[in-house]
């Protein structure tokens, strides 16, 4: 199956000379949730702005549903819904009118049943006749989502959907996103919160300084990049790590009498059994053992450090 979004060699240099994107290639499959992860200023917003038509690319091409976003902009944009980062609503418009306006821009007549179902899904039905300026911040954000959905897009872009959003709304938002995915909508979201990518995404793309460092299935990424660490707390203080344990590259912290051992989670041999045998041979008595998986955050920090 051909990808729903296909980006080839996309670059963007702003008039100021700032290179926001460097030769980005990316294919996004229909129906997946892709998280674009990166720090502020990494190029996430520029990337989706080019696809959505807000920014002109300097070079390269992007296609949505097989349509070039510049040459066949009408067909391409008809497939896209965008929820922008900043809340930008016409203050005197009611929620219903806002949806009607957007749907009209996409060349479609008002569909009351659809509007109702979207507004209900986003807990906005009660507010349909309220002017947007009278809504709370969280509701305004949901109106933006409703607007992006009201023309039935096949690809939904969420730019920093949870910036400045409380826990409750964030949870609601993820419920909506999962529901959309179940309906077959492809979702691309940008975030600088690793937990978000970890929680919701099928695949994660890491952007840093305008470069797409990698795109991986979340699970693969965790497996490939994920290290496990074992913390071994000892009964006694050590002056130094015994020579017989040198090959394990252990770290010792004297404060809590703890040895730390890193190993590949999916390696063929973790070396744990041998380590325990050698610890015992060296006469060390264990108080406690704990293992942990590295988070996306650790992975991300590792990737960025590798590059720089």
């Amino acid at each position, binding site marked *: 199956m051909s990808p729903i979004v296909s980006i080839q060699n996309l670059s963007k240099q*702003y*008039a100021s000379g700032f290179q926001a994107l460097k030769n980005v290639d990316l294919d996004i499959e229909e129906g997946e949730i892709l998280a674009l992860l990166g720090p502020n200023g990494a190029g996430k917003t520029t990337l989706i*702005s080019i696809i*959505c*038509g*807000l*920014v*002109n690319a300097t070079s390269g091409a992007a296609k949505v549903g097989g349509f070039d976003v510049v040459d066949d*902009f*009408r*067909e391409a*944009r*008809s497939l*896209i819904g*965008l929820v*922008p980062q*900043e*809340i*930008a*609503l*016409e*203050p*005197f*418009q009611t929620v219903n*009118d806002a949806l*009607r*306006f*957007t*749907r*009209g*821009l*996409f*060349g*479609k*007549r008002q569909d009351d049943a659809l509007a109702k179902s979207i507004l209900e899904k986003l807990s906005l039905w009660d507010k349909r006749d309220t002017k947007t300026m009278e809504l709370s911040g969280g509701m305004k954000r949901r109106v933006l989502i409703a*607007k992006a959905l009201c023309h039935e897009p096949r690809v939904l872009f969420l730019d920093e959907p949870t910036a400045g959003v409380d826990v409750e709304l964030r949870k609601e938002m993820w419920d909506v996103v999962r529901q959309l995915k179940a309906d077959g909508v492809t979702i691309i979201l940008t975030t600088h919160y690793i937990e978000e990518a970890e929680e919701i995404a099928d695949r994660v793309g890491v952007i840093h300084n305008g470069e797409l460092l990698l795109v991986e299935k979340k699970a693969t990424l965790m497996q490939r990049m994920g290290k496990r660490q074992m913390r071994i707390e000892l009964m006694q203080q050590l002056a130094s790590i015994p020579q017989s344990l040198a090959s394990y590259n252990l770290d010792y912290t004297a404060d809590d009498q703890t040895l730390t051992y890193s190993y590949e989670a999916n390696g063929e041999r973790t070396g744990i059994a041998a380590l325990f045998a050698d610890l015992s041979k060296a006469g060390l008595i264990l108080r406690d053992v704990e293992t942990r998986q590295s988070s996306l955050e650790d992975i991300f920090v590792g990737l960025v450090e590798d590059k720089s």
Partner: protein
Amino acid sequence: MNFQAVKSIYSFEMARFFRTLSQSLISPVLSTSLYFIVFGAAIGSRIEQIDGVSYGAFIVPGLIMLSVLTQSISNASFGIYFPKFLGSIYELHTAPVSFVEIVLGYVGAAATKSALIGLVILATATFFVDFHILHPVAMLAFLLLTCVSFSLFGFIIGVWSKNFEQLQMVPLLVITPLVFLGGSFYSISMLPPLWQTVTLFNPVVYLISGFRWAFFGAADINIGLSLAMIALFMFVCLGIIWWTFKTGYKIRT
């Protein structure tokens, strides 16, 4: 061509007009009435006829133009500037519309508004002075052409403005002098020869002259030339808008 989008933009803009109906209509009507009282009745009664028309009646076309030009520019510039200011303009960029739909929607609505205001002022004028319109169809045509071309001009100002000051600046510093010096209150034949020549560089002269011809059959400038100049102005504006959208200047980064 996405007609539904044109309709959406148009009706949304018209909704704004009707929401602020008192503001939209009362202020131009009131200020024009004051002009009629001061220039038409008070001062006009002491001024002799121009081209066989009483001064009070003579200024009617000019006063309508004064309001129509100002309103066309402010409606159209505000209409497109406000979403830019709010950030909601992103919707226009991400929707399957080209500049054609956007211009038809915004400029169409702005022109409709100012044409309505022009007609209301015309109706108001009948309370103050006696006149009758010699060529009503030509009058309407001139009115509409003016509304459209100056709404296009206002649209350009709205797209190019970076802040509210700039938005106000052009109407204030450019349009008001052009309108006042464009023969709203006098016939340009009243000017010294040098100034008559200078005046010919003022596009508003052609509008007012043509519009006045439609009322009274007498004009400072040949009616064909008037029409040609309005058409030229309109095409220049269209060209600038086309170029602005094509290059993304001030619109896309």
